[in-house]
């Protein structure tokens, strides 16, 4: 019997779990940390190779079943192209984070709080993607939530981390509840929980609508769709940085996987109106996420909010694919889905890179607040170069990978006049504006982050005395940066790699890109649009080198170092530089006054008083003000009112029980 991919994948999961058990035993010893992470690296690489091979060779879907699990159902696992792609994404992110952690993990004060949960987290994410029945899926999903919750709570004594953990746990349970209901509805009254049975079931349009709503809530809360995003910017930064990279770069992708699996695979042919909430929420999430990110002064929190933006972009792509598919526009649907999945891959690459870079900054300076950093480009040359690549990639600058996927997404939107529905068309024009806005805001956001953290003069002594991090961490960051460039200049390879996934979901695929001259990408036809990342990269490289050479030969080469000019009034204090808050002030004034009701109050001292004047900025988070605070208040109110029930006499309790039984019997009797 030949070994099929699913067996190897399950073997890798088992290996992760063994490493987790070993970590429980050996977690406290000093040498354990690099060994555990090295083991994770090896297993993740094996799992990645397996999934990648399954995807590229176009192996037939392979399935396996195990008697463990619910009675009579057991647990089923399957690798089809969709699962193979997401497994590859998950395990590549895991490998990069593990490589980084071989060095970074040494700085952990209490490694036993991280080490056992880390491999378990990786195993759970693999299992979610492998699962082929609802029970295994939900069980793995819960394991993933719990393991990541434990990692978020690793530094539980730090301020705010306990609150982050509580909110995360609440939102994760809520999300799983929604998914549980979704799977319950899909399985129907006969309870066929295997995915194959669910596919055969084919729910009624009304049920399908409910399932879409529940899937959006369940998977969307894990992915960070607005307004279910509130836990994400609290929990992702609270974890150790390599775990933050995993949560932002990889776990959100598992959530996207859950949504894709339910809507594109299990529910059958889509209906046009499914796409409307997905598109609207996706577009709103993209702009809201990046606007939030622009207002943050905590480096890791800004990165977490930017994850929300990117998830919004992915969901816009998915919504577009749904809209096209519902109208039978298969080729356009394939283009939109390819764009979404390409962005999934890209976001894994650059968000992992950026979080690892933030971790390096944290190790080197002990600071996460951007206002306390600055000038790191001189102290940490390699980290800053890798972070620059990540920042440019996430800002969708050509020729890097972020631009390639956003370009595909825009091309997909340009096909939307083919849609017959008026509502969708008008919505899409709005969504296009939101996409354009979010891309421009993302560039501003990352110019701000990079400019404040790495450029300028150091604002504190911690930033002034920073040192470059260890080699393992640097290797992980350099690897991710190179892949950002690689996927950007050769997007055709990625598109072809995604073809089997897209074909298995929409029944169509984009034209094969491999044979096109000069490795261009041509999404629809040559006369419509084409883009060549490789040539653009070579053009920029050659014209920059040409300019540099000419300048070197012909122009004056004299250079003199002197104090900064600054219009003649340079101030030696680094506090006079622009900070993260002051950089964002114009944008806060333009956009924030609507979105966050941002207000600036200036307190001027009365004449004669020599104290400093102060400026205060107040901002409101709409999600908390309108949704969560009323909800929390309502729950507290209900709890206070129901409190009386705890102090009744025995007679009242007995009569309550009697009436409850009576009511239930009545319901049973009257049920049709």
């Amino acid at each position, binding site marked *: 019997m030949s070994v099929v991919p699913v067996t190897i994948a399950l073997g890798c999961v088992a290996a992760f779990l063994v490493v987790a058990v070993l970590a429980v035993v050996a977690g406290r010893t000093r040498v354990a940390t690099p060994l555990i992470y090295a083991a994770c690296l090896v297993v993740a690489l094996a799992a990645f190779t397996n999934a990648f091979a399954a995807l590229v060779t176009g192996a037939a879907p392979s399935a396996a079943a195990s008697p463990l699990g619910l009675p009579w159902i057991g647990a089923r696992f399957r690798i089809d192209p969709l699962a193979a792609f997401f497994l590859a994404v998950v395990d590549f992110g895991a490998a990069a984070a593990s490589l980084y952690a071989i060095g970074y993990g040494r700085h952990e004060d209490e490694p036993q709080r991280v080490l056992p949960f880390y491999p378990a987290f990786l195993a759970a994410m693999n299992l979610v993607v492998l699962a082929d029945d609802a029970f295994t899926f939900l069980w793995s999903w819960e394991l993933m939530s719990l393991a990541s919750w434990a990692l978020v709570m690793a530094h539980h004594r730090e301020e705010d981390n306990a609150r982050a953990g509580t909110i995360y746990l609440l939102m994760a349970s809520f999300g799983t509840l929604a998914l549980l209901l979704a799977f319950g509805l899909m399985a129907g009254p006969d309870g066929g929980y295997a995915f194959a049975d669910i596919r055969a079931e084919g729910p009624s349009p009304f049920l399908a609508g409910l399932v879409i709503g529940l899937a959006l809530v369940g998977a969307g809360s894990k992915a960070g769709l607005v307004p279910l995003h509130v836990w994400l910017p609290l929990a992702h930064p609270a974890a150790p940085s390599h775990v933050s990279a995993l949560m932002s770069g990889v776990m959100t992708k598992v959530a996207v996987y859950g949504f894709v699996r339910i809507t594109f695979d299990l529910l059958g042919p889509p209906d046009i109106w499914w796409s409307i909430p997905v598109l609207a929420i996706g577009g709103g999430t993209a702009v809201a996420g990046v606007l939030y990110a622009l207002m943050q002064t905590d480096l890791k929190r800004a990165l977490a909010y930017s994850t929300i933006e990117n998830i919004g972009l992915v969901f816009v792509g998915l919504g577009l694919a749904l809209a096209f598919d519902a109208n039978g526009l298969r080729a356009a649907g394939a283009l939109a889905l390819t764009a979404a999945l390409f962005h999934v891959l890209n976001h894994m690459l650059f968000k992992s890179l950026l979080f690892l870079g933030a971790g390096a900054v944290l190790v080197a300076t002990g600071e996460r607040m951007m206002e306390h950093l*600055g*000038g790191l480009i001189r102290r940490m040359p390699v980290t800053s170069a890798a972070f620059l690549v990540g920042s*440019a990639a996430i*800002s*969708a*600058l*050509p020729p890097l990978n972020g*631009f390639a996927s956003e*370009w595909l997404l*825009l091309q997909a939107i*340009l096909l939307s*006049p083919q849609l017959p529905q*008026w509502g969708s*068309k008008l919505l899409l*024009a709005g969504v*296009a*504006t939101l996409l*354009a*806005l979010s891309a*421009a805001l993302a*560039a*501003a956001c990352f*110019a701000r982050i990079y*400019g*404040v953290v790495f*450029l*300028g003069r150091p604002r504190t002594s911690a930033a002034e005395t920073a040192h470059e991090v260890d080699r393992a961490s640097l290797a992980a960051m350099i690897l991710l940066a190179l892949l950002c460039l690689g996927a950007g200049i050769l997007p055709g390879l990625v598109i072809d790699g995604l073809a089997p996934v897209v074909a298995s979901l929409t029944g169509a695929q984009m034209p094969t890109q491999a044979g096109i001259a000069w490795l261009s990408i041509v999404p629809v036809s*040559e*006369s419509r*649009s*084409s*883009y*060549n990342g490789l*040539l*653009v990269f070579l*053009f*920029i490289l050659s*014209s*920059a080198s040409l*300019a540099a050479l000419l300048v070197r030969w012909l*122009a*004056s080469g*004299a250079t*003199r*170092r*002197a*104090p*900064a000019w*600054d*219009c003649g009034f340079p101030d030696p204090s*680094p506090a006079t*530089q*622009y900070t993260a808050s*002051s*950089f*964002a*002030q*114009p944008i806060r*004034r*333009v956009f924030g006054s609507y979105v966050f009701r941002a207000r600036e109050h200036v307190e001027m001292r009365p004449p004669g008083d020599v104290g400093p004047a102060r400026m205060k900025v107040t901002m409101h988070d709409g999600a908390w003000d309108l949704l969560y605070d009323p909800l929390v208040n309502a729950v507290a109110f209900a709890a206070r009112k129901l409190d009386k029930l705890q102090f009744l006499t025995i007679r009242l309790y007995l009569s309550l029980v009697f009436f409850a039984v009576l009511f239930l019997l009545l319901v049973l009797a009257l049920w049709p």
Partner: protein
Amino acid sequence: MLDLALQGGQMLLVLLLAPLLTGLVRKAKARLLGRRGPSVLQPYRDLLKLFCKEIVLADTASWLFRVIPYLVFAATWVATALVPTFGTRLLFSWSADLIAVIALLGSARFFLVLAGMDVGTSFGGIGSSREAMIATLAEPATIMIVFTLALMAGSTQLSEVAGFMLSPNVGVRVSAGLALVALMMVAIAENGRIPVDNPATHLELTMVHEAMVLEYSGRHLALIELSASLKLLLYLSLIGCVFFPWGLAPATAPAFDQLQGIAAYVLKLLAGGLLLALFETTVAKMRVFRVSDFLGAALMLGLLGTLLLFVSRSL
């Protein structure tokens, strides 16, 4: 081989014409204000002077600060060379469409913003922060204009768009008019012209672009000035090739047509430059926070153009 020569010729042409255009606009403005003004060749002399001078580099400048002028220049030059000037369908015109050209300019700006932050002065910061704010409105407006054009022409390739605009079935379109107005507004903002920014001053109240590059000197400054001239040329070429595509010759056309194309292009630039100078002398500089209204209007025009097309397609 001829293709390569044409493509190379266009790259050289834009590089040589760009300072002349800047000089022309300055001269025209000066005449309109009743001054004699410097010769139209003055920008070439300025560039030559800057290239020959030594650089005074701030102590706190990093390696990135020294690399950025080359990157900005390369990105702007490549973008300018990809916009059809006198001819369409040049050798490499398919390697980047209009979206990519806009994104290349976005790359140049991203790095220039970083350069403003690098030395760690308050002037650099103020320029970068305001440039970023203007970009967050100008870029979406540009993308919406691109959408309008692409939906009309069924392509984002500039050669195809120009070809469509030349064809007789265009007629008078409201969307195209809206896009033209929006593109002009964006071009004014992107090039830091009055009323958004004033390229001629270093006053604190007006500074955006000039503040950002305040610390640059010598050959670095020369490259940045050249990039700014190229960008102005790019926007005029873009407006010319999309909305006034007369005289554009395909790469396969005979040499006479090519020469005609060059003549038409120079005339278009002349007209564009004079109109810009006229516009700049008739309006007053606006406050920085009024720019958001100005560009918001451009964004709305772009969106309106797209919406009109979406609606008219379904009729």
